[in-house]
Structure formats: structure tokens, C-alpha cells
């Protein structure tokens, strides 16, 4: 990771406020130098405790043979060098093959989900840009899926996707007659569609929210000027709205990507411990590799690989998009 989204912001800060009052107090210097660290300390400690140190331990674990025979005293588990990794990436053997499959499923799922979330969210935000009757109501309504707790939302979808007593089959089969027999949504190949539907339903309002906020930062004069030039609504959308949203989109797409890629709650509530093959997302796959088969070493190795991949993607993405932006502007 070379640049962060935060670094992309136009820098407003010049001199720290402290410099203006340097000589005022004796303790000023210590204060000035120490204070920011003091302010950061709680956040730093918590990040260390909950994120960073566990991550280090996780990496250590990935080099151990941590099976059921050793979990009771995992310090004593034998080192396994790179075994966990070679098992994970040996794509000719079943474990690696399953991981690769799960990885590809996750990529396909994430790309589709992020794409759809972005598309729907942007469209909705653009359509709600102008004032009309019922706009406030729609805006509130559209945020409901995002506001619902994940498990409550997903469990409702589980009910709707039931084979025998669900709404989806009732509508598609009984009422519209689109399928010649009721389909299965939570097992088999359709589970991918089910997962995607739920994920988009739950995720697009976030894109909507962010794009809506982004739209408010576009100065109205731009539109007025374009209108004077005779540009219609569609042209304004293409020439002003979308380009102005670029920086927002850059962050939005990245955040959506990371959240969707790492999403555990949705597939877990939707399918339970063992996801069907067509919807075997990587987070659940790793969970199963660790907790269901009791092999925490391999599970950790898989997580580390996943982390490396995400680092790579994020770094590449940020490098690419910021270069593009610099050129464009």
C-alpha cells in the first residue's frame, strides 16, 4: 500500500495550531510534541490489541501444524515450515483446488456485487438528486436495507428462498409460472444467485448514501453553466455528474470491494456452516477449514494468503486510480 485514500484528500493543514503560540507557555514544547501521540495512544493500543498483534499471532500460527492434537497447547505444536502454504496453493490437490475454486467464486461474486451495488446506488442517487414529491420518503426507505442488522435481513431472505414455503418460488413458479417446478435457492447452483441478490439488496444503499453525499459537493454552477451551453439532463449526467463523482467512486468501490470480499455474516447466516459449492465464499471456506476440520494452521495460512492478495489488489488499485486521476486533472 503506497497511498491511502486519506492521502488523496486536498491537504488543508498548514501549520499546527501550536506553532502560533510557541512561546506562550514553558510546557508548550512538550505539550506540542507529546500531545498528538497522547491523543493517538488509545486508538493505537486498541488497534495493537485487537488487530495487529492477533494478526502477527495468526501469521505465526500459519507456520504451525495446528490440528486437533495440538490445539490444547498450541505453543507445543510442531513447526511445519511452509507446509500449510504448499497444501493451500497446490491446485492439483483437492485442498488447493477447493481453495482456488472458492477464491474464483468469491472474485466473481465480489465483482458482480460491487458492480451492481454501485450501479443501483448511483442511479438511485442521481434520480433522487432533483426535488420531487415523495423524494424524502424514498430516500428513507432506500436506506432501510442498510440499516437492518445483517442477520435479521438475511434470515428474512432465507425464509423467502425456502423451497416449499418461500415467497420466491411462490411468485416465480406458482404465480408467474416461469419455472416448470419450484427451484432450490439455498442449495445447488442457484445459491450463487441467492447470495448475490441478498448481498446487493443489503449493500447498494451504502453506495447510494455515499454517492448522494458526493453529489452534494458538486457545485451547482457547473450545472447552470452546462445548461446555458444547452446540455440536456443526460449530457449533464455524463459530462458533469459522473466525472465529479470520480474521487468518491474511487473510495467507494474500494470499500465495497473489501467489505464484500471479506463478508462472512451474509453467507454464514444464509447457508450455515457448510456453504454450497456454487456459493462457497472464501471467508466461510476458511472458517470451515479452521473450525469444522480443526486445522487452524492451514486455516491461518489461507487467511494470510487472502490478506496478501487484498494488500496487492488495494495497493494496485490505489496506484492505478490515483495515477489516472492525476493525469486526468
Amino acid at each position: 500500500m503506497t497511498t491511502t485514500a486519506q492521502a488523496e484528500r486536498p491537504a488543508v493543514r498548514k501549520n499546527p495550531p501550536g506553532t502560533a503560540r510557541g512561546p506562550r507557555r514553558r510546557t508548550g514544547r512538550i505539550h506540542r510534541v507529546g500531545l498528538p501521540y497522547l491523543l493517538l495512544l488509545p486508538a493505537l493500543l486498541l488497534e495493537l490489541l485487537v488487530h495487529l498483534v492477533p494478526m502477527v499471532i495468526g501469521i505465526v500460527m500459519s507456520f504451525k501444524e495446528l490440528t486437533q492434537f495440538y490445539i490444547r497447547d498450541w505453543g507445543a505444536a510442531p513447526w511445519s515450515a511452509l507446509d500449510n502454504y504448499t497444501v493451500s496453493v497446490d491446485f492439483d490437490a483437492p485442498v488447493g483446488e477447493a481453495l482456488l475454486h472458492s477464491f474464483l467464486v468469491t472474485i466473481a461474486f465480489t465483482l458482480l456485487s460491487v458492480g451492481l451495488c454501485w450501479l443501483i446506488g448511483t442511479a438511485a442517487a442521481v434520480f433522487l438528486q432533483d426535488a420531487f414529491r415523495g423524494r424524502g420518503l424514498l430516500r428513507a426507505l432506500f436506506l432501510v436495507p442498510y440499516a437492518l442488522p445483517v442477520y435479521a435481513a438475511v434470515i428474512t431472505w432465507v425464509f423467502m428462498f425456502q423451497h416449499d414455503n418461500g415467497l420466491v418460488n411462490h411468485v416465480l413458479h406458482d404465480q408467474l409460472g416461469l419455472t416448470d417446478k419450484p427451484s432450490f435457492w439455498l442449495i445447488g447452483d442457484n445459491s450463487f444467485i441467492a447470495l448475490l441478490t441478498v448481498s446487493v439488496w443489503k449493500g447498494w444503499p451504502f453506495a447510494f448514501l455515499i454517492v448522494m453525499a458526493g453529489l452534494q459537493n458538486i457545485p451547482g454552477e457547473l450545472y447552470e453553466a452546462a445548461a446555458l451551453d444547452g446540455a440536456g439532463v443526460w449530457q449533464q449526467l455524463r459530462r458533469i455528474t459522473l466525472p465529479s463523482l470520480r474521487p468518491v467512486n474511487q473510495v467507494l468501490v474500494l470499500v465495497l470491494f473489501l467489505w464484500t470480499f471479506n463478508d462472512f455474516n451474509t453467507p454464514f447466516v444464509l447457508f450455515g456452516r457448510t456453504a454450497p459449492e456454487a456459493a462457497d465464499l472464501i471467508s466461510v471456506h476458511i472458517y470451515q477449514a479452521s473450525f469444522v476440520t480443526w486445522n487452524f494452521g492451514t486455516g491461518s495460512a489461507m487467511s494470510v494468503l487472502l490478506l496478501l492478495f487484498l494488500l496487492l489488489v488495494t495497493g494496485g488499485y490505489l496506484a492505478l486510480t490515483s495515477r489516472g486521476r492525476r493525469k486526468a486533472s
Partner: protein
Amino acid sequence: MRSIRAAAAGAVTLSLALAATACGGGSATGGGSNDSPKTLTYWASNQGASIEVDKKVLQPELDKFEKQTGIKVKLEVVPWSDLLNRILTATTSGQGPDVLNIGNTWSASLQATGALLPWDAENFGKIGGRDRFVDSALGSTGAQGKDPAAVPLYSMSYALYYNKKLFADAGISKPPATWDELVADGKKLSKDGKWGLGMEGSNPSENIHHAFVFAKQHGADFFTADGKADFTGDGTVAAVKQYVDLMAKDKVIAPGNAEYAQNQSVSDFAKGKTAMLLWQSASANLESQGMSKDDYGIAPVPVQSGTPGTGKQVNSMVAGINLAVFKNTDNTDGAAKFVKFMTSDAEQKILNKAYSTIPPVRSAQADAAFATPANGVLKDTLAKSAVALPQVADESQFETAVGTAIKGLFADAAAGRPVTTGSVKAALEKAQQQMPAA
């Protein structure tokens, strides 16, 4: 600046030190002690219709125990979906209950972690000796040749539950004794939105239990004699295929059952939507759902031909719940007393009656309450034609791998895709490759 950096460095070192102590391993306490002789924590599994029901059944008994011994037992009923995870985390951290229920099929797997107190002759002595327990139940308490990791608490076996009224309506006079008869009856019963048989197609454990018995009936096993996974022999493939074919080819199971994993098949049966159900000790559940004792009959699970017995005539696994003690309990004596109490004749009778299970304790089993025709079938099966699931360390992985493979096959069957010997074999092959290379 420097001092700040030093402080930051200190913070980092502190965290790393914490991490290092974490690396030192979870179980500071290797053996047990008697540091807190007045309390015990007990994790019970969810045996009744709900967790609240379990609490109602168990609490009075725990109060009795407290009155007898002065030891207060803190009860937590853990749902099945959480139980194995909770045991695993307890094992890893060394912070768990003193006494806990485990599914008896997990015995060997949990035994391998070394977290459970082995029941050697001395420990058995504290609870009245090994001989008090029925052999079949003891067969499912850990790997052969090792001291059991737990003692049997409740025993169950599979039986065929059938709806008397639906049978009479279809002109069937007696429950099927062979699979051919079951399929024939099932076809007669599967009409007008009702179905012959109910199954839990998405529940890996249920799948394993049935596949295991079918394999036995084909003279096959999922593990070789020396404990290696062997899923793809002709016998096991044929067994799994025969099981899935009940839906795929014979069509006596509603396709919707392929996504059942939360005991929906029991409630379907209780509601009269399906005419037959293969289940372990379902009476209490059925009655809690409003099905009267007279509405259903209980028969032994079918065999290929002849009558249930040993070898190829096996018709159930030894199902049940075992009671285990965590090795690092801080109340070893109290835990032993508690196990003794729970396996005493009196408690065995009370608890097994409440859960419609069979006591694994010989003397309790003799009680008249367990001599009803319903319990007779279960008791007979346990005594004569039930076999324990493989007692190998990889058992829990086996349940996941093969159980999930069968779930996938049911999904195929439900979607109308062909289930062939080839596809079954491929699925099992994949499951086998996922097993740890031992």
C-alpha cells in the same frame, strides 16, 4: 519526543509480550485440581424440544445434587449448532466447563485433543465401575484400546416411525422390514402432496448416520481397520447411492427435503405431511408437537433382507450423548461426584424418561418404563443390531466431508440431475481427499 517514542516502544513490547505469553499455550493448568470444591460448571446439550425445556428438566436434578453434596452446578444448555465450537474454544483456551455433554460420535476426535479426562479403572471406580454400562454404549466413547474419553449418558438408536392413519388409508398393514418394501410402500404413500419418507438432506450428521448404516448393510466401511479413510470402495459408493436414490430414483422423499437441516422432517411427520421418518428417539419431540402416541408406530429401520442383526443386518448407529470431564477442572472430585450422580440408576431413569432415550446403564434399563413397545424397539436395536460410528480421531472431519458430499448429491437429486454411480464416486473421492493425510 524521545520519551514518547520510548513509551510507544514500551507499548509495543508489552503487547508482544502478551502475545508471547499467548504463544506459551492455552493450558496453563495441565491436570485437574480441587481448588473450588463447591461449584461446577456443566454444559448440557440440547436434548429437549427447546433449551428452555432442557433447563426445566435438568434444574430440579441439579438442585437435588446440590442438596446431596453441597456443590452448586452452574448449568448452561448449549445449542447443537454451537456445541462443538464451544468445546473447541474451551479446549484451546483451557477455559471451559468442568463437566460437559458431547455427541458420542465426537468421542475419539475430542479424545485426541487430550483435553478430556480419561476414564481409567480408577476413575470408573469412582462412579461404580465400567460394568454398570451397556457394551454397545461403551463402544462409542473413544478409540479402541484407549481409556474412554467420556461415559455414556443417554443412548439412542434409529427407528422407523410411521403414521398409522396414512398407512391404513393406503392399505398397508404393517411397516416395511426391508428397503424394497419401504420403497414400494413409499410409492403408494407419495401422492396428493404427501410423501412416503422424510429426510434431512442438508444436515451432514444425519447424512453420515444413514450412509454409515447403508454401508454396513453393503458389507463396507468408511475406514479401514487401521483407521485410514476409505470412502470410494464399491460398497460405500453403492450404499450412498442407495440412500440418495430414495429421493433421486425411488422418489419417495419430497425434493424439498434436500434443504432440510433444522429438523423440519420431524415436524413434517408430526403434521402428517410424510408417512415415515427415520429418526433417533423421536417420541418426545413428536408429542411436543401435538402428535399423540397412538397416531404413530415404531418399527426397526429396514434392512436389505431378512431381519436386523449383526454384520450386514445392522440397522442403526449407536447414537447417544456422553458425559465428559475436562481434564483441567478445578474440582476433580466434585466432577466425579456429579458424573456418578448423573449416571446413578435414579437419575438415569428420570432423565432418559424425560428425553425418551434409553439408559446406557444396565440396571436402569431394566426399569419398566423402558419396556414399552416403543422403547422395546430402540432397546432391541441397541442391543442387537446397532454399531458405533468409527472411533477414529478424524471422525469429525469425516462427518463434515462425507456429510457435505451427500448434501451435494441430494441437491443434485432434488434439482432433477442424475445421480449415478460415477457421480457418487466422484463426490466421495473428493471428500476423501479433503481428509487430513494421516
